[in-house]
């Protein structure tokens, strides 16, 4: 579904992603972990097309299409969804109106007609129930007055409503208490299917006990330096990120000694 090859990206002239490679197939859940500054958020921003991020090399193909060539809204319409780390509050835009507009724009892109009001309400109620999402929140303005946890849960609720092919969760767990974490994880697990895929960007291993990944990658200094299964996450938890730094320093040192 997603194929990233040698992706290099800079922000404000500083290179953050230094040749990132990643393959994600339908039905898979990939976790990306790494210390602060490794490039986790940059990866998310580049994939969704945020301004200020310049791709200097490499490519990202989504379902065979050149993702980086599409506008942010077209990427969303193709089926890429980012659950933001810091969702924006937009007072005056109702949650419901927002969802309806987004849903219908995506449908229009696919050549489908607008969703009937009744159908939409039915979908709304269904997903609210699925995610144990408070109906009262749905009726308010987008994220206005929501607590941090509520904002994150609203991101997952939008995910459920828009049904993307690829969902990128950007540090969804940070700032969540254990109860919220469990509810969000339950929700995500219910949404997993053979047709979609998830990239879970996280700093902490804890989330991965609830949303068990198929693959774990470690992002360090703009590259994926290690990949494995969920055991890798546990190893990281035990040994900490310093272990990696040691590991890569040795590799760097070795590189210097090897003849070219």
């Amino acid at each position, binding site marked *: 579904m997603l194929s990233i090859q040698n992706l290099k990206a800079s922000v404000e002239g500083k290179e953050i992603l230094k040749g990132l490679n990643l393959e994600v197939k339908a039905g898979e859940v990939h976790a990306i972990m790494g210390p602060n500054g490794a490039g986790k958020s940059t990866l998310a921003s580049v994939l969704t097309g945020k301004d200020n991020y310049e791709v200097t090399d490499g490519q990202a193909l989504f379902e065979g299409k050149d993702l980086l060539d599409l506008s942010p*809204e077209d990427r969303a319409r193709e089926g890429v969804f980012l659950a933001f780390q810091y*969702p924006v509050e*937009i*007072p005056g835009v109702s949650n419901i109106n927002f969802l309806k507009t987004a849903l219908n*724009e995506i449908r229009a892109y696919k050549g489908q007609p607008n969703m009937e009001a009744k159908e939409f309400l039915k979908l709304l109620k269904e997903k609210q129930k699925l995610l144990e999402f408070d109906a009262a929140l749905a009726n308010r303005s987008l994220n206005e007055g929501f607590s941090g946890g509520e904002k994150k849960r609203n991101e997952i609720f939008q995910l459920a409503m828009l049904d993307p092919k690829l969902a990128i969760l950007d540090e969804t767990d940070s700032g969540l208490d254990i109860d919220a974490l469990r509810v969000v994880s339950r929700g995500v697990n219910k949404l997993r299917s053979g047709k979609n895929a998830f990239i879970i960007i996280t700093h902490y291993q804890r989330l991965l006990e609830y949303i068990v990944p198929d693959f774990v990658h470690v992002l360090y200094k703009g590259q994926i330096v290690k990949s494995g299964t969920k055991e890798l996450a546990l190893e990281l938890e035990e040994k900490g990120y310093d272990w990696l730094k040691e590991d890569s320093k040795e590799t760097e040192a070795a590189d210097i000694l090897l003849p070219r």
Partner: protein
Amino acid sequence: MENRITQINSSLYDQCIADYATRSSLTSTETAEVSAIREQAFQLFKKLGFPSTKVEDWKYTNLVPALKEGFELEQDEEVLSVKDSIIAKAAIQLLDCYHIVLVNGKYRPDLSDAVPVEGLYLSSLSDAAGKPAFKQHFGKYIDLEKFHFAAANTALFRNGLFIEVKRNTVVEKPLHLIHITTTGEPTFFQPRQLFVMGTSSSISIIESYATDTNGAQVFINNVSEIVLQENAQVQHYYIQAGDEHARYVHHTEVYQQANSVYNNYKASFPGTSLWRNNLNVALDGENVESHLYGIYLAGGRQLVDNHTIVDHRKPHCNSNELYKGVMKDEAAGVFNGKIFVRKDAQKTNAFQQNNNMILGKKAVMDSKPQLEIFADDVKCSHGSTMGQFNQEALFYLKSRGIGEEKARALLIHAFAFDITEKIPLPEVQTHINALIEQGLK
């Protein structure tokens, strides 16, 4: 004539001076008091003329192009007919109200709904001249020295509307005043209104505007005096939409006695060439509340100028003013909000906020808050912002598949929603939201 720099040299001025002389025969049917008020106003207008940009309050609003047009002064005319379609278009869907139609300022009971409400009285100004409420309040509140157009109107007004709500009267259904201007020639109109709300009365008034002139330019100089006696509650809506051949200078002078509440909701839209609003509110009693809300969506080469004065004269009053503007294309906007807090007005709470979105590359906005505070135990604040779209919010919407145009529309709605959500009548809120949608296209 004094100070020619602050006056515009125009034939309209001369026409007005001449008109006053010829009208003395007509005004012989008026009461002595009204004649005296006219005379005093005329002397002031003779001195002041029409304001040039050298007058501080007209600094950003240049009237020369508008006044250059040749205008006729309004004539006393026969009963004019009005197309049903014009009235129908102005009506607010689903709103159960009394439609009051005014043609060139003249109250037309034949075109209006009957208003069989005990304690509510409507008539022309001339028919009201003998009433105590009229005599007590007509022409008593505006400081004409400072307001050129109000002076002209007071000297020369022809047609007008008088509304009295007697004490304790609660008018359940709103009054919808539909002001229609109709003429075949470029004309300068000066309609006038006086509303007197009795003690503990309650009423909602909606005012909207339409023109039927076949493209002829019109300039409408309207003056409205509104008196709220003790404990009166007034919800007042202005829906200012129109065509580019129309220019409005609109003076609303509100006088509030103790414990009264005055809420003004003003929405203006692209179309008219010029809209200059002077909204003055005097809080002349304790425990008065005044809320002034405005949303102005300006486009094309329109000029929208909102000047407000909130005058706290007594203690323990609350005023809150929130005006928001969206400037598209090459529109120009002006906001000047004055707040006076007099020496005796202790424990005043006075807030003012003006926020603007500048969308057109050539659009311009001048915003000036002005606070003059003479009491020492008060809470006052003011703020003024100018900006474009919040890029973060825009990206968030796009990341959900919403295209640029729709995303901008959503954000502008969100911006305007702050004002429209405060509108208590749902049908009016819907109507205004629809006009905003249209105005954004």
